[in-house]
C-alpha cells in the first residue's frame, strides 16, 4: 500500500479516526516518528547545573538529528522542528520541548487542520465554510475508501508481523519499511524484536530499495533507525507523563520559594 510509505502516523490516524483522534496521540506519534527518522535526537547529559554544583543530574535534551538537514518537514511536523530551523544551535530540555510543541499546536482543531493540509492527504478531506465554522473534519468518498483500506491493511500486518519477525525477518523488514513510521500504529509489534534484524539483511534491503527509489517516500530514514539500534521506545511513557502534567503546571502563579520557607502564591520569596 504505497500511501503508507508516504504519510506519517499522524496523517494515517487522522484518516483512520477522523473525528475521534486525540491531539495528544497525534503529537506523540509525530514526535516518535521524527525520532525514528533521526530528524531529531534525544541527548542525555549527566552534568552539574553549573561548574561548582555539588550534584550531578541527568538532563534530557532534544537536539537536531543526523537527518535534520536533509529532511523536508511536513506542515504538522514544524511544531517540533521550527526552533531548530530558526536557531540551529539550540538544544531544548525534553520537558520544554513537549511544552513548546503543545503551545505551538494551537489546540486540537488547528493541529488537525495543519496535518490535513499536507498535500498527500488534503484531497481526502471535505472542505467547506460550514465544516470550518463548526470545526468538523469529514472524509470525502475516496477518503472513506482509503480509511477502510488502511485499516484492513494494518490489521493484516498486525496479525502476521510477530510471526514474520520470528520466522522470516526479510519479509518482515520489507513489510515494515513499506509502512514507515506507521509501525507505531501496529498493536502487536514488539519493538525489541526490531533490534534483532541483522545488518546484512538491512544492506540487502538498502540496495533493493535504492534501485527502485521512490522520491515520495522516506524509507531511507527508517533504514537509518534499524541500522543504529537507536533507543527511542522508552520515550513513549515520558511523553505521556510530560504532556499530562501541563494542565497542573500552567496554574502556577507565585514566585519561587527557598529553604527559608518564605514562598507564597502571589508573592516572591526571599532567602539568605
Amino acid at each position: 500500500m504505497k500511501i503508507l510509505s508516504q504519510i506519517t502516523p499522524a496523517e494515517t490516524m487522522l484518516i483512520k479516526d477522523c473525528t475521534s483522534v486525540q491531539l495528544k496521540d497525534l503529537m506523540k506519534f509525530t514526535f516518535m516518528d521524527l525520532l525514528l527518522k533521526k530528524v531529531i535526537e534525544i541527548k542525555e547529559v549527566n552534568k552539574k547545573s553549573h561548574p561548582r554544583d555539588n550534584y550531578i543530574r541527568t538532563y534530557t535534551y532534544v537536539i537536531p538529528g543526523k537527518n535534520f538537514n536533509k529532511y523536508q518537514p511536513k506542515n504538522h511536523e514544524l511544531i517540533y522542528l521550527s526552533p531548530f530551523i530558526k536557531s540551529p544551535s539550540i538544544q531544548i530540555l525534553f520537558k520544554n520541548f513537549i511544552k513548546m510543541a503543545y503551545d505551538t499546536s494551537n489546540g486540537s482543531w488547528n493541529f488537525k487542520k495543519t496535518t490535513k493540509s499536507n498535500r498527500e492527504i488534503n484531497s481526502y478531506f471535505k472542505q467547506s465554510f460550514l465544516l470550518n465554522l463548526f470545526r468538523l473534519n469529514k472524509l470525502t468518498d475516496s477518503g472513506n475508501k482509503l480509511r477502510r483500506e488502511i485499516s484492513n491493511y494494518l490489521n493484516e500486518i498486525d496479525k502476521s508481523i510477530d510471526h514474520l519477525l520470528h520466522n522470516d525477518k526479510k519479509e518482515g523488514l520489507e513489510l515494515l519499511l513499506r509502512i514507515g513510521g506507521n509501525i507505531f500504529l501496529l498493536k502487536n509489534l514488539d519493538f525489541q524484536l526490531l533490534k534483532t534484524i541483522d545488518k546484512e539483511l538491512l544492506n540487502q534491503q538498502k540496495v533493493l530499495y535504492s534501485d527502485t527509489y521512490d522520491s515520495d517516500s522516506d524509507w531511507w530514514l527508517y533504514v537509518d533507525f534499524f541500522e543504529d539500534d537507536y533507543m527511542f521506545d522508552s520515550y513513549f511513557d515520558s511523553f505521556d507523563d510530560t504532556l499530562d502534567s501541563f494542565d497542573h503546571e500552567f496554574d502556577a502563579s507565585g514566585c519561587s520559594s527557598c529553604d527559608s520557607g518564605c514562598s507564597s502564591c502571589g508573592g516572591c520569596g526571599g532567602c539568605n
Partner: protein
Amino acid sequence: MTEQQNEIWKKIQNFEIDDIDSSFSFTDRLARENNWSIEYSLRTVLEYKKFIFLITISDFPQTPSDQIDQVWHLHLLYTESYWIELCKNTINKDIHHGPTKGSEEKPLFKEQYSKTLEFYESIFNEKPPSDIWIDIDTRFNEIHFTRVNRKRNWVIPKLRFKK
C-alpha cells in the same frame, strides 16, 4: 572565536537556566510575563546566553535588544541562579545591569547596540536573528511598556497604517 573563548561559550551554553525539578520554570515564567510563545522564549534564552558571552569576552560595553533585556531582568530576579551559579561559578565575572539614566544616553546606547550587533556577527559568524535582535530604529522607538492586569483590562492592538 579563539579556543579560550570557545571554552567559555561551552560553559555558558551548558549552563541550565531552567530548574529541571520545578514545574513552573524560568522559561514558563518568561513566556507568560511577556506573552511570548514557549518556542520564542526558548530561542530568546539562547540569545541571552550569547549576549552574556559577548559581555564576558569583551572589554567594551554591550547593549542587548529589548527582548534579551527582558530575559536578563527576569534572570536577575533568580538571584542565586544569576549571581552564584552564572556569574560566580560559571563565568567567574560579575556582570552588572545598568539601566539608562535618561534620554541623554539614547545616542550612546544606540551606538553600543549597533556595535553589539557587529560584534555578535564577528564572533558567531552569523547574523543575529532579526526577530530577537530587532533593528536599531525599532529597538529604541518601541519602548513604551506597561505592566497590565489582564484580569481587569483588555489589550487591543492599535490600528497601524502601512507607510
